[in-house]
């Protein structure tokens, strides 16, 4: 049985004084445990909405999301700690008034309920697993860089031992160096904890580095689903091509934009 099964999910945002907007049309996907699904698409394609549905922050207008054989939205309290999230903007994703320890401890206190020494020990383990020091636990978000703060958000996401983590543009705001480091960290943690990822991104290179299956959304519709990196690389359909063209060339000479301009130098 698949860990995650998205079954003909559609989602409509009702708006005041404007016609309702359908952001997802009949999306169906399955994801096996221990794998990483890259959810690709440009802005407004419905990637993040699908992420919010997986998290339980919203319920789909029609269709069902089966998680571990259970309808994710059948209960009033879908938040059981088994699905976690890492957001794009790490500064917005943590409460500026809390210390790193408080931030990481939130899911711990809600789901695992450790006390005293064991709790402290767990916090130290978690922050060290994401490559920070135990002394960082007493710091406030303003004292961290964006990359460090993203590590804290990751520590919070793995704290309650989830099965699935939704990475919503988790590396999109980082510089190239941090992006590589965080992707490597995510890959390590996935092995270490046996995690499953849904990696929402518009960055095809980042997705190729972390994911082993790929889905492309365009205007709320699933336009491509590739079960392996090889299949994705070999794919030639227009949706994949459009995603590939969206990335910047590695070498400056390959930038097509330059070719059309007169050389002033």
């Amino acid at each position, binding site marked *: 049985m698949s860990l995650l099964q998205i079954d003909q999910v559609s989602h409509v945002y009702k708006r005041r004084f404007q016609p309702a907007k359908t952001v997802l049309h009949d999306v169906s996907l399955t994801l096996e445990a221990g794998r990483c699904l890259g959810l690709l698409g440009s802005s407004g394609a419905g990637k993040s909405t699908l992420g*919010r549905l997986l*998290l*339980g*922050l919203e319920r789909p207008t029609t269709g069902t999301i089966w998680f571990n054989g259970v309808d994710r939205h059948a209960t009033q309290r879908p*938040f*059981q*700690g088994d*699905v*976690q*999230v890492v*957001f794009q*903007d790490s500064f*917005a*994703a*943590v*409460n*500026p*008034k*809390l210390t790193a320890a*408080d931030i990481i401890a*939130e*899911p711990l206190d*809600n*789901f695992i309920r450790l006390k005293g020494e064991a709790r402290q020990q767990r916090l130290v383990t978690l922050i060290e697993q994401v490559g920070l020091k135990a002394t960082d636990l007493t710091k406030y978000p303003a004292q961290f860089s964006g990359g460090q703060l993203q590590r804290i*958000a990751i520590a*919070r996401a793995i704290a*309650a031992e989830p099965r699935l983590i939704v990475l919503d543009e988790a590396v999109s705001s980082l510089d190239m160096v941090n992006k590589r480091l965080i992707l490597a960290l995510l890959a390590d943690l996935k092995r270490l904890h046996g995690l499953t990822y849904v990696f929402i991104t518009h960055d095809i290179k980042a997705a190729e580095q972390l994911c082993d299956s790929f889905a492309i959304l365009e205007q709320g519709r699933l336009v491509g689903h590739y079960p392996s990196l090889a299949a994705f690389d070999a794919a030639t359909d227009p949706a994949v091509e459009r995603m590939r063209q969206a990335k910047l060339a590695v070498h400056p000479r390959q930038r097509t934009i330059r070719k059309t301009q007169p050389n002033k130098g």
Partner: protein
Amino acid sequence: MNTPLPATMIRSRYTPLLYLCAFVLIGMAGVALFAPWIAPHDPNLVDLTQKLHGPSSAYPLGTDQLGRCLLSRLIYGARISLGCAVLIFIASLAIGLFVGTLAGYRDGWVDQLLMRLCDGVMAFPSLILVLGLVGIFGPGLKQVIIALMLVQWVYYARMFRGMVMTLKTEAFIAAARVNGSSSWKIIRTHILPNILPPLLVIGTLEMGWAIMDISAMSFLGLGVQSPTAEWGAMIHEGKSYIRTNPELMIYPGLAIMLVIISFNLVGEQLAERFGVSKTMK
């Protein structure tokens, strides 16, 4: 010059004036608290043989038309003016915080109902509404306090609703929900601590307004009743002697001005410090 100033330079913008204002407010609070020990005379002791005297060693600011010590009346007046302002502020803040947080956090019909209620109250100019309520309840300090509270809370509710609604869309609130925090815990640990700094600013600015409102009501003869000493009431009583003894009105007027200016200047500095918009009406 859009580059942000370094922290040390921001700190240096705390002018001596701010310290002076803070000193005035703390001094006033001290005077109000320890009035019985500081005042040279009983503020309500009538001595017609001493009426309308100028300053003397026994009466540092002179006496009023009934021979009561002006300084003592000012000191006791601080008690009522400041005390009631604090009371109105805390009570209306508490109601506004509760209603605003509830409306902002639980949108839908709860929000609609509470906000239409606020709209109804805000549709009237607040002074007229207070006058109307006092007209219903009858004159008296207690009635004025209740009326001011009933009118003031809507502005707090509106403001807190806006702040909560903005905060609610922050990613850390979504993360807190995913992390299994209950609504109450989210409000307590994520929302309230983040609306506290603006609260401090608004509170300081509003305190000045509350003192003004109480004094205004007393001046109109609706609030504090004779012979209780209160600044607005003192101006009211002294207005018959404006040609011969203007100090009867000048001293309480100065006291009101000093306190309100101090509250406003401190509030403005805090607003700058925390980057909060200064108006809520």
